[in-house]
């Protein structure tokens, strides 16, 4: 494959998408594990509400999510204004794209991890408790190792979703080449320009390859998780 198969601008978009997805997944993973554990194992008031909130980005029009992000995390927004004081600007930056991608991918991540936690026999956790392990240690020494493949599966799925996120991203951080123009935004832009269909087509192939690869990997990890918890 020749190096100029993708233009420098296209490469930039692919690289940016990978970077955005990587950080989106990495930063949201701890919260994702915590949320999944809470939904799978804890009984607390507001559990239903939390479950709904987590799943909301899956159902809301992405443009609405993006607009809500802009209202909250924009420079004038309640959280955004405060963050700007400590030197963090999200709106119209790649970091904002990562936030949008993280929120849109969160339901998929939590779902996969939650399923793997629910597959862990709680009686194993009881046994660990009777052997002297406090709840945090039970989680670290029993639950976590058993759900590790499930966590990886959730992370890979979320990564794929984050690469493909478009609606919320373009609403929140716009479509600035080299700064916030991710893979889907780049494809969208190419399609608006006459004569760039071939360029867009190549990006589409990249997107398909990344998505299928992630899906296959996630499936494989999920199966590994199932094998692990069912001796």
């Amino acid at each position, binding site marked *: 494959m020749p190096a100029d198969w993708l233009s420098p601008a296209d490469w930039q978009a692919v690289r940016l998408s990978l970077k955005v997805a990587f950080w989106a997944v990495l930063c949201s993973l701890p919260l994702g594990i915590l949320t999944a554990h809470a939904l799978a194992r804890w009984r607390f008031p507001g559990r239903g509400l939390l479950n709904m909130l987590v799943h909301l980005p899956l159902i809301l029009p992405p443009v609405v999510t993006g607009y809500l992000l802009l209202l909250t995390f924009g420079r004038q927004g309640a959280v955004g204004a405060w963050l700007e004081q400590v030197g963090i600007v999200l709106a119209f930056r790649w970091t904002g794209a990562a936030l949008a991608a993280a929120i849109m991918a969160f339901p998929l991540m939590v779902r996969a991890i939650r399923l793997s936690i629910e597959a862990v*026999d709680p*009686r*194993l956790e*009881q*046994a*660990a*408790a*009777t*052997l*002297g*392990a*406090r*709840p945090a*240690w*039970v989680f670290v*020494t*029993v639950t976590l*190792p*058993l759900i590790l493949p499930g966590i990886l599966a959730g992370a890979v799925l979320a990564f794929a979703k984050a690469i493909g996120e478009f609606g919320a991203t373009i609403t929140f951080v716009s479509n600035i080449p080299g700064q916030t123009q991710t893979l889907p935004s780049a494809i969208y832009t190419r399609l608006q320009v006459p004569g760039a269909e071939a360029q867009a087509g190549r990006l589409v192939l990249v997107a398909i390859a990344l998505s299928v690869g992630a899906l296959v990997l996630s499936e494989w990890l999920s199966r590994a998780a199932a094998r*692990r*918890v*069912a*001796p």
Partner: protein
Amino acid sequence: MSLSVRIDHTWPGFALSVDVTAPPGVTALFGTSGAGKTTLIRAIAGLLRPDRGRIAVDGRVLFDSDRGVNLPPHRRRVGYVFQDARLFPHLSVRQNLLYGRWFAGPGGGPTLAQITDLLGIAPLLERHPAALSGGEAQRVALGRALLARPGILLLDEPLAALDQPRKAEILPYLRALRDATDLPILHVSHDPQEIRALATTVLRLEGGRVIAQGPPDAVLPLPLDAGVTLRATPRDGPGPGQWVDTAAGVLHVATRATGPLQLRIAADQVMVATAPPAGLLGATVLPARVVEQADGLLRLAVGTTHLLARAPQDPALCPPPGCAVHAVLLRDPTVLDATGRATGSPSQTD
């Protein structure tokens, strides 16, 4: 070391109310399913919070509703061996064994080598739980509980999921464990044979209450089929019942028949007297000799056959094998029909 438990716990359709102490050694919790055995040991382990009461091991209070004490399971130092071994599938046998030791911290208690020797699991150390047989897994679970340095051991039907050969394989290890430690061991079981093999004391639970407490032979019910079946030939004589000839001697039955009969003499109907009894109206007394004692029963040689009788509750009162005694039949034997079932009530006549 000892355990004292006094708890009340109610939920819809069931109430548990017990007040018991268990000395070092094996105390069996015996009862049908739903009697409250597992509820009781879950409460001791802290996996269930009783409504009221107090639980203490060796003076250490684990739970006291009056004083608001309720230690979480990980601070109770209770070794719990579950019916399903519950080994951690992602850890090797060695890591499983040492899991609790890590939390118990350094100092005292049996070593890994002592435990693996005691339970015969040294060759399994590098294996994973998935590669163990049911009996091996249960021995590893036992070792894991012991290495956590518990103050008491709770065995929740650890043999129930195993077949007879596997049970026979583990029982010697449990006996060795009982003799090697001064831990109180609570052993939940509904298998009288298993209890006789292990326990010094039996608590019999029924409907959430302790209905009997004592040595196994005194507390355990006799096997349902304890008793003997004899062939009988009727003699002529006045009714309503009649005398019959049997291998055990001449007996009286309440029914009348012309042909041969099958009689059933349950162990519960036979009492043993060491001196010739006098003045027992309606009872038949036969000369007998003690053959052996097992499972709460005495086997007696009577006539040219054997009869079974319930052994005395105090083992010291039990006549030794070979001792001449008198078998007292408290009731007339039950007459069986051709299919081996008892015929109508004994007062009926044909």
